[in-house]
């Protein structure tokens, strides 16, 4: 029955991505051209409220639904993979106008071309898995 919880959260996420227009190729272009505050406002609100939420959860040592302490994963230190991977991701994000979440939201919305983007994303992930030991991290 736990799946119902995650499917519902996913549905909420999908509706937000469309209704906020964050799943819009046009909006991503507008963002990278600095021609509207819309996407910046959206991300700043999410991060600001998310940070306050996490801070409070840590402060009051909130236990999760099963009574176990909540653990916030620390990212591995370094910069090469974050910067290089980030730049490669950004090139694709601007070209397809979609990050991984919105790719699938847009398939549901009905854009056939997004199926191709998803297949490309799977191929890119697979390629990373094959050559990862040869890349600087």
């Amino acid at each position, binding site marked *: 029955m736990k799946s119902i919880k995650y499917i519902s959260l996913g549905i909420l*996420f999908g509706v937000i991505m469309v209704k906020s227009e964050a799943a819009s190729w046009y909006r991503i272009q507008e963002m990278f051209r600095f021609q509207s505050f819309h996407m910046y406002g959206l991300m700043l609100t999410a991060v600001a409220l998310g940070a306050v939420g996490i801070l409070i959860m840590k402060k009051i040592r909130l236990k999760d639904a099963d009574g176990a302490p909540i653990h916030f994963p620390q990212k591995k230190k370094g910069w090469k993979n974050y910067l290089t991977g980030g730049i490669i991701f*950004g090139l694709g994000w601007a070209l397809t106008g979609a990050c991984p979440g919105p790719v699938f939201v847009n398939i549901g919305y009905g854009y056939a071309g997004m199926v191709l983007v998803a297949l490309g*994303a799977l191929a890119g992930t697979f390629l990373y898995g094959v050559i990862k030991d040869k890349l600087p991290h």
Partner: protein
Amino acid sequence: MFYIWYYAVHYITHIMRFITQPWPWYVSGAAIALIMILLNYSRKSFGFSSNLRAICSLLGAGRKVKFFDYNWKAQKWNLMFLLGAMTGGLLSGTLLNNEDALELSYPTIRDLGNLGITFDGDLNPSQLFDLAAMTSVKGFLVLFLGGALVGFGSRYAGGCTSGHAISGLSNMQLPSLIAVAGFFIGGLLMTHLLFPLIF
């Protein structure tokens, strides 16, 4: 009794009108933060691109490549989230659809027009994402290679917009800040230097 029904229908119409219109950025931003916090409360971490690795494993990539030989079943919840996201997209495009055009800023419409990309008022330009575009050589390459950059880059950087820009920055992670800086460097390069060469 009649009045109760009358008001119920009246309010439902109002609520539907409220949901179907585009949401202001502060409402959407708050809702995204809420999703992240609810996932954290279930000891899950909000990061969509992990699904791409899990799908590769589910398709059997683990038999050939070590990176995909891991416990992908721990990501089952995330795959459910993905199914939900697709359903959310479907609902937004049908039941919750509104007919108004997206309110894109004029300078963007003008700049894209100069590149030959028409603003059609919907979420994405159909000239890039419809069946005709998919089956043209250039259209195919743009979509498939664009997707490959997204998939490769997010795994190399260890996360995408949700994992780094939302979860990571909210938890004050320096690596996420570096990744998000990378997202923008890449996006600006593509938009301002490569778009005129591609389109």
